[in-house]
């Protein structure tokens, strides 16, 4: 099969790519990478991602890494398939670019750290650092205040359609909803409604189902 995703069903970055493939209705082969044995730091995986982090991606002779680059490659290559996820008019695209940068530069730092402390560390038998949790909840609250303002004006972060800018948030929201950090989301009605909407999408439900199977 031309499209292959090398990663883990539990890795947020891998889940980001899978969400995109399911939204586009694309077939792919999943190649599980065992982080427990350090498979991600050795050949052949490290030839696909020289930074030794999940996921890696192939589409024929295209071999790339960085989940947000992969999702953009998929959406701009398979424009006619499934959910559009992007705009093609430069001015609409620009608002989408802003939404994607806001997710990776403002939202993901606190959200990623909270997911790590509250979900992944306990799973690995490590202790949660409560000081970090408190500090990052404050940061997340400040960021989500801006989102609350934005989502009072449009249904999704970059306009009235679901796009990559919304999709990129799914894996960390999925993890945060199972933790005390859910309160930060729930305290903001437009953010809460938007979260519920995007997490309920059938494509995302398929990605979650893979964790259970």
């Amino acid at each position, binding site marked *: 099969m031309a499209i292959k995703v090398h990663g883990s069903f539990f890795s947020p970055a891998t889940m980001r790519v899978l969400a995109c493939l399911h939204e586009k209705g694309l077939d792919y082969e999943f190649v599980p990478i065992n982080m427990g044995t350090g498979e991600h730091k050795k050949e052949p995986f490290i030839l696909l991602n020289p*930074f030794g982090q999940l996921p890696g991606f192939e589409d024929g002779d295209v071999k790339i890494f*960085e989940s*947000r*680059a992969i999702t953009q*490659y998929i959406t701009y*290559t398979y424009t006619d398939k499934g959910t559009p996820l992007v705009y093609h008019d430069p001015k609409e*695209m*620009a608002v989408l*670019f802003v939404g994607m940068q806001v997710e990776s530069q403002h939202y993901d730092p606190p959200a990623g750290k909270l997911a790590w402390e509250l979900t992944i560390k306990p799973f690995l038998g490590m202790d949660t650092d409560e000081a970090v949790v408190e500090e990052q909840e404050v940061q997340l609250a400040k960021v989500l205040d801006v989102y609350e303002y934005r989502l009072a004006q449009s249904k999704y972060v970059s306009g009235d359609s679901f796009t990559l800018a919304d999709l990129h948030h799914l894996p960390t929201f999925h993890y945060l909803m199972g933790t005390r950090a859910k309160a930060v989301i729930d305290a903001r009605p437009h953010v809460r409604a938007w979260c519920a909407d995007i997490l309920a999408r059938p494509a995302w439900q398929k990605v979650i189902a893979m964790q259970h199977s």
Partner: protein
Amino acid sequence: MAIKVHGNPLSPAAQRVLLCLAEKDIEYEFVYVDLATGQQKKEPFISINPFGQIPAFEDGDLKLFESRAITKYIAYAYADKGTPLLVEDPKKMALIQVWSEVEAQRFDAAGQKLSFEILVKPIKCWATDEALVEQLQAQLATVLDVYEKRLAQSKYLAGDNFSLADLNHVPRINNLMKTKVRALFEQRPHVWAWCADILGRPAWQKVLAGLN
């Protein structure tokens, strides 16, 4: 003028946008934002960037923020002007996307914090955290080892031509060259040659000349 950049010309993020406009040979009006008085946290600036950070950007009625979103917009909207910074072929464009993400997620993650510790803190009379600087240098060194291997295979990060992925690095590298972090670049011959090339571009020289 249709295009306006709001910021401080010494800010690397603002410089990223100015460089892109210079590469594209596009005219613009620069609107100075006084960071010392917190102008970026108040109206009218905060209506353009609700995160209260520079730069902000206008093109007619389009208002944007996040320097990397702005440079990407300029590169798409003005694809026919000046230096091509993107490509149409999705497979080649994929590499520009990859190395643009690497710059934002990995290179600048360490680079921005190093810049803050070594260059910004002393201006505010705050103490540099030397232990953090050592840790960040080690982090950046690991990233630059990957760059060294990559740049041994192609002249620029995404291939044989200068692209948006290279451009986004320029202001931060320029800053770090003024510090001891310069050694990390100097120790890696392909990285060093690439730095000299991208910092030597006429568009960047024009941005630097404009600062004076």
